[in-house]
């Protein structure tokens, strides 16, 4: 594949990732967010696939497939399942969307600043867009810290994880396979556990609103 | 030298035992005369003592061995003080230099004995007297020490004999500011320690104002005799000390018969003179309220301290 095309496609994917993240911050209907999440996962998979094609390494392509299955399909569906159980679809965030979006802008700038040293990892289209991954990480963290609801925290966690994966693939074309597998499985397990816990919380508290989970203080 | 010193020490003891009752007699007589009364004559204290030794002491329930041991302890301390301080002569044994601190602490031993006697009977007034007595003693001790400390600085020794000898050698030091301040402080301390006016009224019969009398209230017979004689000796000794510091001339510096007799004579003159002076003053003094006494003592303490500091600063300039 031609380098120029590759660079454009990479840029495109990065753009989509960033856009989906910003939309996640903006829109607060849970079902919509989950769809955005699957979109993000898919885009990530595409990104990986393109890197694989560019490097012509089967391993990476396999990983791309795995990512597609996991982040594009499995995790969003799991989330959707547990989201169905809870009645309310809207989620009032701790801070209002405007402030959140401004915060996102700041985080993006921060991400660019802190990933300045990473630019030295080598020229080429991939390293140029590493900051996007950083931004995703920070946005994910922000979603986590502002989510008022179990599901929205899960979403935030997954965005953060996507961000890390993005950085991983962009900066280094993916860590060794065994580590990669371990990572994916761990993420899966964590999400499963959180889902189980959400279920139990649902049964205990009748809702999955995190404001109820403040009995342990001091 | 040592033998002479010991001999002189015992001489001083004997002389003081003979003189102090007379001293008390003279003081009372002077007072009586000044107040326009005839008075019993100066031998009355001797008669009192003889009477008391003849009477049987009473022992109330609750009284312990302290009642009989205390007075003797007081006597011992008073006599030892008389032996240790320079009265007739400035010669002191090398074994027991009349060290300032030793003398003061032996005096205090007597004070303690007196206070314990007061507490022993377990009556209200005994305790009251002893409490007041100890409070005053506690306040007096620093004054005495600091005052004599002030006098001892020029000599650089705390032996009283040495101090007096130095003053004989250099009379000008007596009328120096330091020595005058120190002597004033010492005088006030003496009045307080020996419970004279204005701290205590020796001839009061009103229990609530008593200090010394309240302590001996329960004692009788020979116990009382010892207590009285002991306290008189303390007064005599302190007056004698002031005398030797104020007018050291004529005190024996060599153990020759002549000098000793001269010293004796001077001692008698000084004692009786000072006694008369003291009781003369007492006529014109009113007893202080007990809670005003600390002010007096604090004042005397400050004077003593000034004396010390002055002595340094004067030496510097």
């Amino acid at each position: 594949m031609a380098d120029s095309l590759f660079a454009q496609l990479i840029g495109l994917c990065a753009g989509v990732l960033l856009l989906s993240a910003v939309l996640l911050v903006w829109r607060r209907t849970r079902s919509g967010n989950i769809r955005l999440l699957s979109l993000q996962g898919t885009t990530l998979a595409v990104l990986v696939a393109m890197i694989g094609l560019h490097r012509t390494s089967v391993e990476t392509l396999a990983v791309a497939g795995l990512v597609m299955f996991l982040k594009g399909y499995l995790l969003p569906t799991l989330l959707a399942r547990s989201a169905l159980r809870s009645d309310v679809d809207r989620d009032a965030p701790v801070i209002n969307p405007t402030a959140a979006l401004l915060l996102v802008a700041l985080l993006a700038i921060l991400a660019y600043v802190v990933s300045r040293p990473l630019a030295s990892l080598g020229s080429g289209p991939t390293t140029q867009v590493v900051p996007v991954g950083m931004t995703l990480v920070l946005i994910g963290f922000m979603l986590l810290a502002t989510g008022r609801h179990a599901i929205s925290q899960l979403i935030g966690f997954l965005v953060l994880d996507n961000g890390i994966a993005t950085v991983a693939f962009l900066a280094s074309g993916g860590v060794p396979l065994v580590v990669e597998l371990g990572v994916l499985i761990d993420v899966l397990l964590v999400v499963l556990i959180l889902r189980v816990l959400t279920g139990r919380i649902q049964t205990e508290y009748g809702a999955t609103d995190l404001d109820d989970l403040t009995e342990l203080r001091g | 030298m040592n033998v002479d010193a010991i001999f002189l020490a015992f001489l001083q003891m004997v002389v003081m035992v003979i003189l102090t009752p007379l001293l008390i007699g003279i003081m009372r007589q002077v007072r009586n005369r000044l107040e326009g009364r005839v008075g019993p004559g100066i031998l009355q204290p001797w008669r009192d003592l003889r009477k008391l030794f003849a009477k049987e002491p009473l022992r109330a329930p609750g009284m312990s061995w302290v009642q009989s041991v205390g007075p003797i302890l007081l006597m011992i301390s008073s006599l030892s003080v008389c032996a240790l301080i320079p009265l007739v002569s400035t010669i002191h044994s090398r074994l027991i230099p009349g060290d300032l601190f030793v003398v003061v602490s032996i005096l205090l031993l007597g004070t303690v004995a007196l206070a314990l006697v007061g507490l022993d009977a377990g009556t209200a007034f005994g305790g009251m007297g002893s409490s007041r007595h100890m409070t005053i003693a506690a306040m007096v001790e620093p004054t005495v020490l600091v005052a004599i400390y002030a006098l001892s600085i020029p000599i650089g020794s705390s032996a009283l004999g040495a101090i007096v000898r130095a003053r004989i050698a250099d009379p000008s030091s007596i009328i120096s500011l330091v020595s005058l301040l120190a002597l004033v402080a010492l005088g006030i301390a003496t009045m307080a320690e020996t419970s004279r006016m204005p701290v205590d009224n020796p001839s009061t019969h009103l229990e609530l104002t008593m200090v010394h009398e309240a302590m001996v209230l329960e004692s009788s017979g020979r116990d009382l005799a010892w207590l009285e004689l002991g306290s008189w000796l303390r007064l005599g000794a302190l007056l004698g000390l002031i005398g030797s510091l104020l007018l050291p001339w004529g005190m024996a510096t060599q153990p020759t018969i002549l000098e000793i007799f001269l010293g004796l004579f001077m001692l008698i003159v000084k004692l009786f003179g000072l006694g008369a002076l003291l009781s003369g003053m007492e006529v014109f003094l009113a007893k202080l309220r007990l809670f005003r006494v600390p002010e007096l003592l604090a004042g005397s303490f400050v004077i003593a301290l000034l004396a010390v500091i002055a002595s340094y600063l004067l030496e510097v300039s």
Partner: protein
Amino acid sequence: MNSIAAALVAQVVFAALAVVLALVLPEQRRALWCGVTISAIGVAGALTGISALAGGRGGIRIPISLPISALKFEPQQLGALFMVVVGAVGAITAIYAIGYAHGPANSRTSWIALAIFLTAMQLVPASADVVSFLLVWELMAISSTVLVLTEYRHRDQVRSAALWYSVMTQLSFVLIVLGFAILAKQSGNITFASISAMHSHRSSIAFVLLIVGFAIKAGIVPLHIWLPRAHPEAPSHVSALMSAAMVKLGVYGAVLVGTQLLPSGPSWWGLLILVLGGLSALYGILQASVAVDLKRLLAYSTTENIGLIFISLGAALLLRSSGLGHVADYALVSGLLLVVAHAAFKTLLFLGAGAVLSATGEGDLDKLGGLGSRMPVTSATFAVGALGAAALPVTAGFVGEWVLFQALIHGAKSSDRLLAVVMPLSVAVVALTAGLALMTFVKAFGITFLGRARSAGAQGAKEVGFAMKLGMVLGATAVVGLGLIPGRLGIQTSTLTGRDSINITSMGGISLTKISATLNPVALLILAAATAIPVLVQSIFAARRSPRRRVDLAWGSGGMRSSPKMQYTATSYAEPLSRIFDDVLKPDRDIVMTPSAESQYLVERVRFRQQVTDIFEVRFYLPAVKWFDRIGIAARRMQNGRIQVYLSYSFAALIVVLIMAVL
């Protein structure tokens, strides 16, 4: 394995033996055997000290797995003196404890703790490097805390006393660790030898840290706060050990720092110690003079005595720094003499207080009285102890204060304005302290043992058993013995100062050669005896002529009204004094008048209550505790249970760290 090492090992072996005995023996046999073994520990410690004072060297080393040099226990001259003191006190108190310990004080725990406590105390002055010092120091602290807690079931104050004690002790530990760490860094090694080997350096921070740290342990005002709480609550033999031995180790630390680790300091170092000492001496004796609880009185008098010792130490440093070396030596000697003297008479006094406590069940002076006839041995020995505490001849306390006075009056070098002001003031402070001490101990002895019983407990008191009497008699012997022939000890202490500036006189007295002052207690005794002869003869003659007559009522200014209630109590005895020092003591008094039913002008009963609190506690410590509580409660909001808040902590940390990383 030379003699000293053997003796050190012997102490540890005895301690282990005592622990085993305490564990295996049944309750009724425990006291005897444990007591004997523990006093053996004490004897072993004293012997170690003596042989080290005699110039013996040697010790034991214990390697540890951390890369820091091995633990070394090698007593030097100075430490050896304190080992003797601690060992002797330990031996006497252990013998006493055989008779005293019963109930919780006879439990396994408290015997084990006692053994460890004594051993640790003896090893503190033996330790030759910082880490082992700190180790035994903390062992001493924790075992003594256990001992203070002995009677926690009976009184709830015991727990708070133990808490205060452990907190203050830990504070002192922290300060000492920091100070030693500074010195260790500067010298590059943790042994005392290497620290004192580095010359011409003055780390004022280290000095202040160490002095304050040791001052806490020594019960110096305003850090004394634990002492009047812990001493009364502990069993009496433990109070004796703590007050006579453990507190001394704080002094040991201060002396060690002032004379060996940091010998060449500026003059304000000495001044600092001097001021601390003066403050403690005055405040301690004031509190003691108005105290109504016997053991509390003794505790405050400990503060006073340590204050005097600090005065002499401070004077020594001050004089040395202003070039009066020989007088400085005398000041130091007086301090060490006072250490020994105080150990002797304070042991005795606490043991006596314990005897009174166990005989009457009352520690409150206002409920005692008239014990002199019921408990002759206790009262006689207590009287000796009181004489010592009042620094009257012929006791050990008097010798110490005499040397101190000599040093102070000769320490005034007129060219030095500082000395010219400080020395007389110190003389005045010491003199006032001595006067108040006199009053305090007349009160303590008179109210307890003279007069008539003020409570049923005092009425039915019986003399205590043999072991306790033996302990007290040994103590009294020490007090008088050291008071009569101080020469030997004086020479021993003067060798610690490097120059031998003290001679022993023909009568075993002490003579300060450099300033030509001599003290011959024996001669004084002979003089007193000589003067006593005529007095006694006259008394005997008079007694033959007119024997005593018993009357069934004291005159009491002529009344049937004189009931024991009418005696002066401890409170009323100290009343004039507490009025004089009202501003310092701030006692809270209240008078409740209950009028009779008929008319409010007829008063049925008047009850007067007066309580003297410790102003330092009220003004500084309790507010500090409140302040900490407020902070602690405020801090709980940090952890308010909201996961979003927690996550934002992490988020903030992430951002900060990232920025740090790229900057």
